[in-house]
C-alpha cells in the first residue's frame, strides 16, 4: 500500500432529528480497496456523500493529498479527483458510450466545437484501461446493467479520479458480471487509485477489500485489515453494542392462519416466497435494505402485482389483489415512507384518520360528521395523539404523532392483519414505546402483525417468529429465543443459509 491520499477527520453531520455522523475518521491510501460496512442507517452513505461534495459536514476536516480541502459542490470534488458512482447511474440513455464518458467535458478544438476524433480516441483508451472493447457508438440504453456500470467507471477514469467511491455496486450486478467488476476494481487498485467500496455483503468485503471501516449508528467502530478479522468478527463489529431497550411482554392471542403465501415471485426482489401469518402473532421480517422486505409487504397488500405464486386470506385464494380488495379483506399497511405513502400531509388529522373508512361512515355519499368526529376523538384518546384539534394539518405533528395517526387510521378499519414497514423509524423513544404497546394490544385482540424492521433489537424483542430475507428470498426463520443479532445478520448478509451451512444457535 502506498501513501495516504485521503484523511477525513472527526466528521460530524446532523439531520433534523438524527445525528447521522458523530466524529468519524476515515483514511485511504493509494492502491487500496477500502470497504465501508455497517447496517442500514449506520452513516455510510452520508459519509461518502460528504466526501463527494453532496453534503457539507457540520464539523471535521478533509485532507486530500495532505492538504485541507472544502468541497462546495459535487463538481468541486470531481475537480479534486473524487468521483462517486451511485447505485442509480448518471447516464443519458439516448447518447452513445463515448458521449456519455465525456458528457459535459467534451474535448474541444480551437473553435470551441466538439473534437469528435479526440473524443472517440480518448474513450477507446479509457475503456481499454478497463479491459473493455465496448462499441463506442452504441446508445447507453441498449447496454446491459454491467456494461453501463463499466461506462460509469470509465467516466470516473476520464476525470482522472484518484479516489473512486462505489455505492453498493453489487446490488445491480451479480455472478459473472460481478467477477468482471471485481477484476476492474483490482486493476484500478493496482494502477494506484484508491477505491472506497460500500457493501452490505460480508463475503464480497473479504473477497476484494484490503481494509474495512465499520460504522454503527453514525459512529466509527473500527478500521481493520481484512486479513486480521473473520466473518463472524466483522458481523459482531457491525452489530456492536446493543441498546438496552425494554419491550413489553408478549401477549398471546387466538392463533389461526390468516395469511398464506405460496411461491410468490416478482422480478428480482421476490423469489419464491412462501410463508404464513397467524392471528394474534407478530411476524418479524428482518433483512438488509433492498432485500425485498418492502416489496413483500406491497405484494401482500396488492400495491404491486405478483408475477407468480398465490396469496390466501383466511384459507381463500385471492386473485388480482389490489389495495382496495386487501383492505376489504381486513389488511392494513403502515408504509415505510410516511410522507410519500403514509399521510396526506396538508390535510387534517381527521381527514387522515378516516381516509380508509370513509365508505363506512357515509349515508347517500354524505359523510356523517357526528360519526366521523366520534371515531376521531376516540382515536386521539386511545393512541394519545398530541394535536391541538382534529382540524390540525397532519404535517405540523411530530414524526411520532404522525405515525400514531397512520396506525390509528388502520386500526379504525378493524383489520385482521396489519403490515408495518419500519413502524418506529425516525421517531423518539417515548413514541416508540407507545407504538410497541399498541402492537401488543392489537395482538391480544387477535390481530396478526407483520413487522418489517431494520432494528434488530426491535425484531428480537417484539416478534413471535422472525423471517430473514436476503436478495429476494427467505434466508431462514428463527424463533426469538434462539435469535441473536449476529445470527440474523449472518442470514441477512447471505453468509449462511438456514438449510445450507446452518445457523449458529
Amino acid at each position, binding site marked *: 500500500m502506498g501513501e495516504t491520499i485521503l484523511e477525513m477527520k472527526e466528521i460530524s453531520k446532523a439531520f433534523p432529528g438524527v445525528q447521522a455522523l458523530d466524529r468519524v475518521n476515515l483514511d485511504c491510501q493509494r492502491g487500496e480497496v477500502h470497504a465501508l460496512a455497517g447496517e442500514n442507517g449506520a452513516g455510510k452513505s452520508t459519509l461518502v456523500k460528504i466526501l463527494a461534495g453532496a453534503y457539507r459536514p457540520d464539523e471535521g476536516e478533509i485532507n486530500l493529498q495532505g492538504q485541507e480541502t472544502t468541497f462546495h459542490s459535487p463538481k468541486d470534488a470531481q475537480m479534486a479527483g473524487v468521483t462517486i458512482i451511485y447505485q442509480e447511474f448518471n447516464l443519458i440513455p439516448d447518447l452513445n458510450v463515448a458521449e456519455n464518458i465525456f458528457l459535459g467535458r467534451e474535448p474541444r478544438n480551437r473553435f470551441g466545437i466538439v473534437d469528435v476524433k479526440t473524443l472517440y480516441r480518448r474513450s477507446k483508451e479509457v475503456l481499454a484501461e478497463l479491459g473493455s472493447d465496448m462499441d463506442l457508438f452504441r446508445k447507453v440504453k441498449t447496454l446491459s446493467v454491467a456494461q453501463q456500470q463499466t461506462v460509469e467507471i470509465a467516466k470516473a477514469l476520464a476525470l482522472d479520479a484518484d479516489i473512486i467511491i462505489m455505492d453498493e455496486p453489487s446490488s445491480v450486478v451479480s455472478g459473472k458480471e460481478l467477477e468482471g467488476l471485481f477484476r476492474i476494481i483490482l486493476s484500478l487498485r493496482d494502477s494506484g487509485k484508491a477505491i472506497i467500496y460500500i457493501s452490505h455483503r460480508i463475503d464480497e468485503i473479504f473477497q476484494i477489500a484490503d481494509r474495512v471501516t465499520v460504522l454503527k449508528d453514525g459512529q466509527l467502530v473500527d478500521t481493520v485489515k481484512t486479513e486480521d478479522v473473520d466473518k463472524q468478527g466483522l458481523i459482531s463489529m457491525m452489530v456492536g453494542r446493543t441498546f438496552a431497550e425494554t419491550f413489553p411482554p408478549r401477549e398471546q392471542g387466538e392463533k389461526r392462519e390468516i395469511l398464506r403465501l405460496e411461491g410468490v415471485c416478482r422480478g428480482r426482489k421476490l423469489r419464491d416466497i412462501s410463508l404464513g401469518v397467524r392471528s394474534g402473532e407478530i411476524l418479524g421480517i428482518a433483512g438488509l435494505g433492498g432485500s425485498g422486505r418492502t416489496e413483500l409487504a406491497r405484494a401482500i397488500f396488492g400495491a404491486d402485482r405478483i408475477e407468480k405464486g398465490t396469496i390466501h386470506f383466511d384459507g381463500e385464494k385471492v386473485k388480482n389483489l389490489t389495495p382496495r380488495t386487501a383492505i376489504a379483506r381486513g389488511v392494513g399497511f403502515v408504509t415505510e415512507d410516511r410522507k410519500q405513502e403514509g399521510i396526506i400531509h*396538508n390535510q387534517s388529522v381527521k381527514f387522515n384518520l378516516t381516509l380508509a373508512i370513509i365508505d363506512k361512515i357515509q349515508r347517500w355519499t354524505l359523510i356523517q360528521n357526528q360519526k366521523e368526529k366520534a371515531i376521531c376523538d376516540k382515536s386521539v384518546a386511545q393512541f394519545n395523539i398530541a394535536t391541538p384539534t382534529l382540524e390540525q394539518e397532519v404535517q405540523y405533528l411530530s414524526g411520532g404523532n404522525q405515525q400514531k395517526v397512520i396506525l390509528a387510521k388502520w386500526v379504525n378499519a378493524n383489520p385482521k392483519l396489519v403490515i408495518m414497514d419500519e413502524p418506529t423509524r425516525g421517531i423518539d423513544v417515548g413514541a416508540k414505546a407507545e407504538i410497541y404497546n399498541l402492537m401488543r394490544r392489537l395482538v391480544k385482540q387477535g390481530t396478526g402483525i407483520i413487522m418489517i424492521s431494520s432494528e434488530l433489537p426491535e425484531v428480537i424483542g417484539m416478534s413471535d417468529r422472525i423471517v430473514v430475507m436476503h436478495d429476494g428470498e427467505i434466508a431462514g426463520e428463527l424463533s426469538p429465543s434462539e435469535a441473536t443479532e449476529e445470527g440474523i445478520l449472518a442470514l441477512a448478509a447471505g453468509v449462511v443459509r438456514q438449510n445450507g451451512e446452518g445457523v449458529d444457535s
Partner: protein
Amino acid sequence: MNFGYIRQHWETVFVYFILFALIVLVGATNHLFLSSRNIQMVLLAAVALGLASFGQTFAILSEGIDLSVGSVISLTTCLTAGLINGRDQMVIPVVALVIGLALLIGFANGFLIVKTGVSPLIVTLGMMSIVQGAALIYAIGPIGEISPAYYFLAWGKVGPFSFPVLLFGIVTVILIYVLKRTTFGRYVYALGGNEEVARLSGIHTGRIRIYVYMLCSLMAALSGLFLTSRMGMGEPVVGEHFMFESIVPVLVGGTSFLGGVGGIVGTLAGVLILTVLQNAVNLFGISTYWLWIVEGGIIVSAAAFYLKEKI
C-alpha cells in the same frame, strides 16, 4: 364566523377582502359601476365564467387541468342553437343530448389520462383541438336560433331576482357541499393531496379521476347552455378564451396547481374579481387585451409560486 375559521382560512378571507376593496375602488371612481343595470351585467358575466371555473376547480384540485373546457363551451352553443333552431319542443332533447355529449368528452379525457398515464395537460390539449374542430365543422360561423322558452335561462326573472343568477347561486352551494361533505369531495382532495396514499387507502383513484373530468366537462356544457341563451345563437369560437380564463379564478382563489388545496369558495371570489376587473376595464374604456396580459402574468407567477413551495 369565529376567529379560528379566519386563521385557518386566511387566504380565502384575504381574497374576499381584495374583492371587496376592488368593488369599493371601482364604485368610487365610476358612478356607472354600482348601477343596477351594470351589476346585472357583471353577474351575468360571472355566471358564464363561474360555471366553467367551478369545473376547472375540481380538475386542478385533483392535480390535473382541463384545457378542453373552452371548446366544449363553443361546441355546446353551436349544437344547442343549431338543433333547437327556434323550436320550443326541441329544448329538452337538445339539452339532454348536449349534456350527454359533454359527459362523454369528459369521460374520454379522464379515461385517457388514467389508462395511458399521459399528463392531463396533453390529453386535454388534444381534446381541445378535437372538440374545436368538430364545432367548426358543424358551424363555420354564427349558427341557429334559440326558441322563446329558452330565453328564460339567461334573461328570466323569478320575482325580483335574475333566474340565472339564482340558479348559479344554487349550483355554487351544491358544489361547495359536494366538495366539503361528500365522499366524492374527500376523494378529490385525497387524489390531489397524494394519489399513492389515496390508492393505498383503498380509494378507486382511476374512477374518481374520470368522474372529475366528467364533472368538469359538464360544468363547461352548462356554461355553454347559458351562453347560448344569452347570445340567442351558437358561435363556434365563443369559448376560445375560456380555456384560459377558467383557470385564472381558480388560482386567484387559492387552489394550488399541486392539487389537494383550495376549493369552490375561493374560486367564487376569483370569478367575481375577474369579472369586476373586466367590467371596470370596459367602463374606463381601456382595451380588454390589457387584462389578458395581467391574466397571463397571474398564471405564470402562480405556477412558479406553487412549484417553489413544492421544493
